[in-house]
């Protein structure tokens, strides 16, 4: 029997109640993360990518609620309330790094106090041991003179350093899975690259599984093994990263890849996706992408089912792009490029 995935989400539905009514931010998401794997969840704002991961972490708060769905950790249910699993697994075995470190750190406490708190709560360390371990963690994330820096307040660090501290805190409880939600978006370009390199290095050194939530296909290409593309609360395509970039099956994925400004093509017009992402409280009937889709036909008014394309690929589309070639052929396509 194959071992269960590290994390498994099945048919997750998360709704939010607003003055305009109840709308679903996540509309039936199923995904899994294998041990040692880096999964990219790609989507634009409002696609539900962050909300899905917040549900895993038990961070859905009113007016949000988990309507439906199962979440399992190593095959065991992540039991909890309507707002998500209890903090037993989330926080200890699953840790999360957010986009904006300044709002996630307490501005009034030194970083040493904040890191040792995690160590005392989750690892049961005493003050001296916790303090020694905290400096070790800061050194691990590339902060020089860690013993001295433990006494600094968050604002005494630059944005890049704060993000390193957030990563150190997330690693304090020695999690098996690290969820990084847009970890570099708020940073300057050269600092983004530093944090990406740090995440890749830590993942390999500590054998972490990672879920990278991002809108940046470039980051996905650099870090991920497998990708789930989200649009309007659903996963529209899943694929191993090489296959996704070489032959996207969903028209939205293809559009995202084509519309990216890049350094290595001619600097002409960009191929844009027309229209705007739909309002989550007012989605088109059937496929939510159909109003922007160049391949849309009449039957797209019906909800597309997810088709299994084999070799770990799936697409939720009535008219996917040219069916991906078999695995061996694909390998040759790459070699020829």
């Amino acid at each position: 029997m194959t071992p269960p995935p590290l994390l498994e989400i099945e048919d997750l539905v998360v709704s939010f109640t607003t003055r305009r009514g109840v709308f679903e931010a996540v509309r039936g998401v199923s995904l899994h993360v294998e041990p040692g794997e880096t999964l990219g969840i790609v989507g634009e704002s409002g696609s539900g990518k962050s909300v899905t991961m917040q549900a895993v972490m038990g961070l859905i708060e009113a007016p949000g609620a988990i309507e439906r769905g199962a979440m399992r950790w190593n095959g065991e249910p992540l039991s909890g309330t309507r707002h998500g699993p209890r903090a037993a697994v989330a926080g200890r075995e699953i840790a999360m790094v957010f986009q904006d470190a300044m709002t996630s750190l307490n501005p009034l406490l030194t970083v040493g106090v904040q890191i040792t708190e995690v160590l005392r709560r989750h690892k049961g360390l005493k003050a001296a041991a916790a303090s020694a371990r905290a400096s070790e963690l800061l050194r691990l994330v590339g902060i020089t003179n860690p013993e001295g820096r433990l006494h600094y307040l968050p604002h005494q660090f630059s944005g890049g350093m704060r993000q390193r501290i957030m990563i150190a805190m997330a690693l304090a409880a020695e999690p098996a899975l690290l969820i990084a939600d847009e970890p570099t978006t708020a940073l300057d370009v050269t600092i983004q690259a530093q944090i990406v390199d740090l995440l890749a290095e830590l993942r390999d050194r500590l054998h972490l599984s990672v879920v990278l939530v991002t809108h940046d296909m470039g980051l996905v290409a650099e870090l991920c093994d497998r990708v789930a593309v989200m649009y309007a609360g659903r996963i529209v395509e899943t694929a191993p990263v090489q296959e996704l970039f070489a032959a996207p099956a969903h028209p939205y994925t293809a559009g995202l890849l084509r519309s990216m400004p890049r350094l290595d093509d001619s600097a002409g017009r960009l191929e844009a996706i027309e229209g705007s992402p739909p309002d989550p409280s007012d989605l088109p009937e059937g496929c939510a992408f159909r109003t922007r889709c160049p391949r849309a036909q009449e039957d797209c008014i019906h909800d597309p089912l997810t088709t299994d394309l084999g070799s770990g690929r799936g697409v939720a589309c009535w008219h996917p792009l040219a069916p991906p070639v078999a695995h061996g052929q694909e390998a040759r396509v790459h070699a020829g490029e």
Partner: protein
Amino acid sequence: MPESEMAKQADPAKRLVEFTDVSVAYDVQRAAFWHRKPPPFRAIDGVSFQIGRGETLGVVGESGSGKSTIGKALLGRAPLATGNISFDGRDISKLSGAAMRRLRRHIQPVLQDPYASLNPRMRVADIIAEPLLVHGIARGKEAEARVAQLLNLVGLPSDTASRHPGSFSGGQRQRIGIARALAVEPDFIVADEPVSALDVSIRAQIINLFRDLQQELGVAYLFIAHDLAIVRHVSHRIAVVYAGRVAEIGPRDAIYGSPQHPYTRALLDAVPIPDPARRGERRPTIRGEFGRPGDEDHGCRFAPRCPLATKICREAVPPLAAKAPGHLAACWNS
């Protein structure tokens, strides 16, 4: 001499904007009343460049580099400490209030955050027509017709006019902001990170819109961004700024094809390669973070992070010197 080299780039007759040794300084508060007053902070320091009619200069730099200050200086919203800025042959720092107001018509801003820059209580028609009224260009029916024309120009349906900005997505709001900037038929638009707040699928639309409008209307842009991938598709020339100074400036293809300044190279290296088959090819990133300690001001401000830095880099400010026709870099080692 940098100035003479710069002069070769733009035909003087077509030259629209000229920065000559421009510095912008802001007063710094003393830490406590018994402390000595710190020297003013130079957000930009000795910046020179030109922009021709119908041309786009992309300005790239990290936060704190002074890239937005360059735009503010051109809009007359930053205090000049040295140098002068000329627009269409007139020195804007010497203009009287009334003349400055007339000039403002020709230089319009497009801002980063389309959520914060549009008044939520105004109808879109009134937002776009406001500059027409302020500058006494059109009113009533005439203004209404102009609004309809502008909405069409930026690709918005005509029923947009009677709605409020709250009901639009980020991309549509940015189109409204662009329509407003274009209302008075400016010669020049200062666009400060106009696509940074937008979703990925929308960015390309707005970048294309900037390109199309330039072709149609001949308007020139100062296009500010923090990322070299974004400006590539809109710029004719690109200036890379670091710590308030121009590190490198040149034609687009020269900047991407043969970058001369190590900082430009670092910015190019930092962009992820969107191709998993080429994973690991990105060169290692430069270390450290941008900082501006005052006592390092004798030398190159990039020297503390620069992999090529030598003794002279810490002792003398490198001049912005020509490396190829129209391609200048401020580096002792390039």
